[in-house]
Each structure stands twice: as C-alpha cells, then as structure tokens.
C-alpha cells in the first residue's frame, strides 16, 4: 500500500508539513485564519539537529505494537492504516510508551492523535506531501 516516506537529504526543515497537517483537520478554507495564534498539534513532526532534518509520522507498521498495546481498544488497523478512535482514547499514552519511532503525540484534549494518511479528512492525498516545497515527503508504494 502507499505510505508516507521522507528523504532527509531534501528536507529543508521548514516545518510547512506540520502546518499543512494541522490545517488539514480544520475544514477551513484559509490556513492563516485557521491557525493564527493557535497552538498546533500536527501528526507529522520535523526532527532537526542542525545537520540532519526530516519529518516523522506514523509508519503504519505491519506488526504495529501500538495497536497490540492499546488499553482502551482505540487503536486498530484498517486496510493497512493504523487508525485511532478519538471517542475511545482516554489518553493513557501506552502507545507513546511503546512506539519505537516516537510517532504518536497528544492533542489539545490530551488524547492521542496520529497520522491516518489523511483518510480522516477531505484532503484526498496526505496534506504534508502535497504541501512539501522540496518533494522531501512522498506518498508511494514501496513494499
């Protein structure tokens, strides 16, 4: 299946993917109006030590330990996508305890949020990929 991959050599560290990700869930038409002066909780995050930079989001692991460890039954795998049921998540962070990539994060309600490849909004293709100015993030089949 198609997943999000990054090319760290091409990443500029501009963080636009984070803004596009946060904007994708708002349903609003204008990014600056939607996000201005607001704390954002993107599901893709740039890691940057000044020399190396890349964007990190859920890998949708074949053998997803977060799904196996979820104490509330909120995480599941559907058609290859690790999904989270926001109504079931109680924010225990067991998934954060086990994710080997550090790809799950808390949202404004202290529940967990994660990349669902934009299947949970109306973007179609992942917003981080569409908005990346240097094609450092791609959405493709590699398995």
């Amino acid at each position, binding site marked *: 299946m198609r997943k999000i*991959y990054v090319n760290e050599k091409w990443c500029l560290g501009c963080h636009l993917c984070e803004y596009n990700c946060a904007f994708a869930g708002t349903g609003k038409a204008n990014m600056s109006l939607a996000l201005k002066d607001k704390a954002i909780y993107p599901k893709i995050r740039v890691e940057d030590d000044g020399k190396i930079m890349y964007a990190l989001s859920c890998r949708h692991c074949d053998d997803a330990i977060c799904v196996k460890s979820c104490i509330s039954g909120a995480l599941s795998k559907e058609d290859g996508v690790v999904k989270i049921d926001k109504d079931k998540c109680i924010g225990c962070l067991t998934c*954060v305890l086990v994710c080997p990539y550090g790809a799950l994060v808390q949202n404004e309600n202290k529940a967990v949020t994660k990349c669902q490849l934009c299947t949970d909004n109306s973007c179609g293709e992942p917003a981080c990929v569409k908005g990346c100015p240097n094609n450092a993030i791609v959405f493709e089949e590699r398995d």
Partner: protein
Amino acid sequence: MKNYVIIGGGIASLGCVDGIRSADSDGKITMICDESFPPYARPLISYYLEDKTTIEKMQYRSDDFYKEKNVDVVLGSSVTKIDKNSVITEDGKEYKYDKLLAATGSSPFVPPIKGMDSVEKKFTFMTIDDTLALEKSIDASSKILIVGAGLIGLKCAEGLKDKVDKIVVCDLADKVLSSILDKECADMVQRNIEESGIEFMLSDSVDEFKGNTAVMKSGASVDFDVLVMAVGVRPNTALLKDIGAEVNRGVVVDDRMATTVDNIYAAGDVVESNDITSDTKKIMAILPNAYMGGFCAGVNMADGKDAFDNQIPMNSIGFFGYHIMTAGSYDGELYEEKNGDSIKKLYIKDNRLIGFIILGKVDKTGIYTSLIRNKTPLDTIDFDAIKKNPSLLPFSSDYRRKNLGGVL
C-alpha cells in the same frame, strides 16, 4: 478442522483469536468468558467512574469482530475443570478441544483482617460488575477508604475523586506504586495526587475493622462509608494445577506460551514469563503483554511458529494529567535528569538500556522502550544524545532509511 477452546474473556483471549486466525481461517474457536461481557478494556473501569468512557465504549472490539472471526462467544460461564481433551463448565457443559488457551487471569487478593465481616459496603476493583456495584454505593457525601496504594487502588481513587466527599488511601509500604517506583519518584507522584485532595496513610495498615471504622496498626482510626480492597491480585492457577501443569507463582510457559501439559497454552495475568531485563521469571500482569502472549499462543496453537521472547514489565499511567512511564529493571548505572515536576531516570547495564522511570514529560519514551526490548548495544548508537533527547536523530542514517521506509 481444529477445535480451539479459549478460557477467559480478557485481552489475552482476544490476542489468541487474532493469532489463530492469522494462521488458520477455518478452525472452530469457542471463547468461554465468566463475565457477562466479551473482552473489554479492563483498565478503563476507573475512567468509567470519572465519566470519561461508557460500558459500550469499553467493549474492546465491535460485535461484528466476533462474527467476522467466526468466534463462538459463551458469556457468563465458568470453567470448573480442564480434562485432557475437553473443558467442563459449571452448568455441566463439555467443550472438546484440540488446542486450549487458559487465559484465566487473576483475582483480587483480600487478606484476612479482623472484623472484615462487620463492614457493610466493601468492594474489590477489577471488573465492570465491581465498578457498577461500587458506583451504586457512593454519593457526594461518601467517605472512602482504599486499602492499597498500587495501580488499582490509586486509579480507583482518581475515578471516585469528584463523586465523593473524602478519600483516604492506606498502604503497608512507605510509598505509592511501590512495585514500579523508587521512593523519590513515588514521593513526587504522591504530592501530585495529594494536590487533588486525596489523603494518604503510608507505612500503615488496618489492624481491625469495627463496622465503619478502621483501626490502624499505628493506633490511628479512619471512619469510612465505603471500603475498597486493592492490596493486589493473585493468578487464577487452580484449573491448570489440577491438570498437572507446572505452576510456581504463575503458570510456567515457554517462549511459545505452551504450558508443560500437551496442547495447553496460557497467557495473560496467569502466567509467569521471562523478564529480559533481569533474566528472571515473573508475572507481568499488563495488558500489552497479555495481548502479545495471547497472539503468540494462538499462532502456535494453529501450528504456526511464533515466540514471545522479549517481554518486559512496562507501564504508562497518569493521575490528574501527570504522567508516569516505567519499564524494565532499576539496576546498573543511573543517568538522571530533573526539571521541575519532570524526572527521568535511565538504567544502563552491560552496554544495554535495561530500565527507566520517567515522570512528567514523557514524549517519545517509546524510543527508550524499544532500546530495551531490542537489547540494542548502546555503543552502536549515539546514546549520549538519545539519553538527553529521545529521537531518531542520533541513530544512523541507515537505521532511519531501513525503519522509516525502504530505499530513498
């Protein structure tokens, strides 16, 4: 076609269904649950008291799941005997099996205390039924005494906090969460919980109950309306002992989750397994290990090949928004950071990370857990950078290429 029988309606049983079905789509699966619900999110009973979830939402999988996986779920039925090729339930029914999973779980341990019979409203806190009964017995004026400051007792206290007048938690130990925290971290957690108004009586225990008064060993007395006993749990090993399986504290299983009796597997709270961080056998009664152990058992029951050979104790738990993550053993060289309400303690031994206690800021802790579970030699990564700031940056570019997605 094979006959699979699963005793127990917890998460290990659910893992077993997934494991069996990954290798055998035809075999008949019967799951016998003694509770009146199919597998539910047991650790969420305290969140139910807090109105953060409902009984419906606590159902771990949808009803369709059992249909899709073709599982015959028998509810409200206790198994009373395991025979060589069948199990017998209390109503006299017999279920034949070729392969059996005994995921019989654990039960609250209630120590004998003088005068216990004189306590009118007393509960344990393990099941939905316990929770509904406890909920019915309380009101805004209730005074609660919880015996046990472990995970169960403290989550119960948090769940009840806004619904009752007063909560006192006592424990024989000198600290809260004594099985997973050192004294310094326990004191920090205790202070955070105390801010909510919950009171503690540590290094003290109940000597005698006189109706609704607990007379403590220290001489103090505590008046209460409702008592919750949360001293600990004991594995339900009786059925397996009777059929001759080797049992120490828990049921002995190998890495395939097979017991010492042919065709009988076990997983979840009832088993003791090898903790790779100390290389000792112990009961690690936590939900992720129950699922993974059950899954592994299921694969092997269906003649697949799987081993669950990287088990560690690990916990992620929060109280009033303050998070605690722990894993492994607290032994070897210590690296620590303290910053306000946040504490990080990492334990390093023989070139491996073998344990941690992290309080407060817990982002990306999974990177540490993964180093423990994978026994990653620390001289192969830039651990000096990772110990300060868990991320994938200090790993090699090759590692990231491999793990973040194939060829770039």
